[in-house]
């Protein structure tokens, strides 16, 4: 890359990605965020911290995850599909990378109590595992509707000794679970660490979640080169809810000549009012501590998002994605429930890999007629999670009783 070209260097020191990001929180949380930011910058430079983190990722999390050439679907599509197998992580998704990073910060800061929000339950499971490993009390806020959709994960969280608190306000999904977690944090800020599960929320969360997840992209870059002898792939693809698995893959490639695509959940279609396609259909706003694109009403009330997948069912998106869309560095596409379901079955049948329903949205992009993927292109898809948790939802959609 031309050394005169300015390297990507976001966010700025106030946590802004131009107009996005920032710290839009009650005053009570400001000292906690400042403290977290200081601790994070210290840890980033601390070799012992980094070593502990990478050892945890390796021996507890199971990294590195493979980069796998999916030959059967590649043959069918006419281009090379590489799957970054984050589904093979401990607890079944990329979420563990971030949970382990944040829990190490919590320990350094002497916090005894861990709280988290969860939608699909993957972040709840990852946080519960990390908290169990380090012997910390753990409370997971989860919307009542999501508890119903993701019973298996609720059971797992409980098995690991964490407590799930059902959230019954609002839409009873991820956004409301996040509100409740913030209320808890405001009240118990002195002894509690809030492990946010995606690259959302007030600064420094979007930055530190991205950084903890960027192990995905860093590994991928090296693996791709080692396997193919090519310098870089042509294209990266990942699903986007809050956006942490996507940023984890994208970030180490951000200054490279690689096309990058994020795929949002279009639910029943972006022309209906039942979708979660925040970047495609949203407007500028502030929610959960950050300025970003948002699904909202004409009066500025937060809209109820919809997606069959609980992990993408969120009206906001990480501020960095809003910035990357604005600067056109990343292209954002979307996939409907039906397209994701088709992709879910397709990948399972062709490759013997059952993806998470969230991930299936990214898989669906491969078959999108407008994707303009050229013959023989190397496309890397972040297979962010496995589909075990979605079996009940899928069976119901297919009309099968388990």
């Amino acid at each position, binding site marked *: 890359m031309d050394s005169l070209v300015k390297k990507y260097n976001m966010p700025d020191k106030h946590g802004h990605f131009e107009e996005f990001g920032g710290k839009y929180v009650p005053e009570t949380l400001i000292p906690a965020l400042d403290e977290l930011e200081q601790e994070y910058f210290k840890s980033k430079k601390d070799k012992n911290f980094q070593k502990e983190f990478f050892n945890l990722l390796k021996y507890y999390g199971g990294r590195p995850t493979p980069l796998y050439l999916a030959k059967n679907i590649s043959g069918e599509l006419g281009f090379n599909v590489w799957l970054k197998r984050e589904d093979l992580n401990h607890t079944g998704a990329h979420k563990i990378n971030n949970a382990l990073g944040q829990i190490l910060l919590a320990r350094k800061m002497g916090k005894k109590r861990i709280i988290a929000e969860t939608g699909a339950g993957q972040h709840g499971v990852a946080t519960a595992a990390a908290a169990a490993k380090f012997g910390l009390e753990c409370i997971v806020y989860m919307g009542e509707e999501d508890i119903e959709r993701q019973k298996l994960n609720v059971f797992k969280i409980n098995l690991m000794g964490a407590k799930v608190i059902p959230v019954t306000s*609002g839409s009873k999904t991820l956004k409301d679970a996040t509100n409740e977690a913030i209320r808890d944090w405001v*009240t118990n800020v002195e002894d509690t660490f809030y492990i946010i599960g995606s690259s959302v929320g007030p600064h420094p969360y979007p930055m530190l979640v991205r950084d903890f997840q960027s192990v995905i992209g860093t590994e991928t870059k090296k693996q791709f080169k080692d396997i193919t002898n090519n310098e870089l792939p042509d294209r990266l693809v990942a699903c986007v809810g809050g956006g942490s698995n996507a940023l984890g893959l994208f970030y180490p490639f951000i200054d490279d000549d690689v096309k990058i695509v994020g795929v949002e959940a279009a639910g029943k279609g972006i022309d209906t009012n039942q979708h979660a396609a925040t970047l495609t259909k949203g407007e500028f706003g502030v929610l959960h*501590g950050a300025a970003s694109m948002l699904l909202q009403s004409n*009066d*500025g009330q937060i809209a109820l998002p919809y997606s069959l997948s609980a992990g993408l069912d969120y009206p906001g998106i990480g501020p960095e994605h809003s910035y990357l869309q604005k600067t056109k560095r990343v292209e954002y596409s979307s996939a409907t429930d039906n397209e994701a379901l088709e992709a879910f079955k397709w990948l399972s049948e062709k490759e013997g890999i059952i993806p998470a329903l969230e991930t299936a949205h990214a898989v669906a992009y491969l078959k999108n007629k407008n994707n303009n993927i050229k013959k023989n292109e190397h496309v890397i898809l972040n297979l962010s999670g496995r589909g075990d948790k979605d079996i009940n939802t899928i069976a119901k959609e297919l009309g099968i009783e388990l």
Partner: protein
Amino acid sequence: MNRIKQLFSNDSKKLIVFITAGFPEKDSTKDLVLEAIKGGADMIEIGIPFSDPQADGPVIQEANEIALKNGITLLEIFEQVKDIRRQTDVPIALMGYYNPILKMGTMDFIKKCKDAEIDGVILPDLPLDESVEFCNNLKDKNISPILLVAPNTAEKRIKKISKLAGDLIYAVSILGITGNDLSSKNNLENYLAKVKENSETPFMVGFGISSNDDVEWFNSFSNGAVVGSAVIKKVLKDRKKGVVENFVKSLKK
């Protein structure tokens, strides 16, 4: 001089009452505000309902939900305040979350505040660092930005916050959300003394204040006490006319 500055220029005890707009019926705002004033409220906070009120406990959350179900909008709230203004000169502040204001456009919002003779604006999710421009724009129109401080706010920061606010700040009594229980009086005394020492403006205290004793006590350590959840709770239980007036009277006696 704006009404808030004027009110806080004297030393008398002050009771500030919070009413959620559009609750329990869409057009209840005016009646409840006038009842509170009749009961003795010295200043009114009108809550702009929001779908995701992160700084609020279950009571005000419920009022927000009811108000939004009633279909209240920010534009209608301005009309209601104009209507209230015809009958009273008591200072009125709007309290809400930033997103509906951003959606309207901050300059448009400020202009509408001016037109409705609103005296102050309180936004719990717009802290110092993000609010400088907004506060200055409010002050240009002689509207008081009422910024918040909390028990864990550093002394230097209290100074900075009060300087930007200019007329009045709002000290949150506890680490927590509206309607939570108060912490020990000992801790509170130390905290309020710290605010008093460092604030360049008068300050009122709110969150968890629910009785006449509380109001008396907080007034002896600050310049005013805000009662919110306790008022809303009364209305949730009993929508009869006079409930708010009687309750406010009992707080003020």
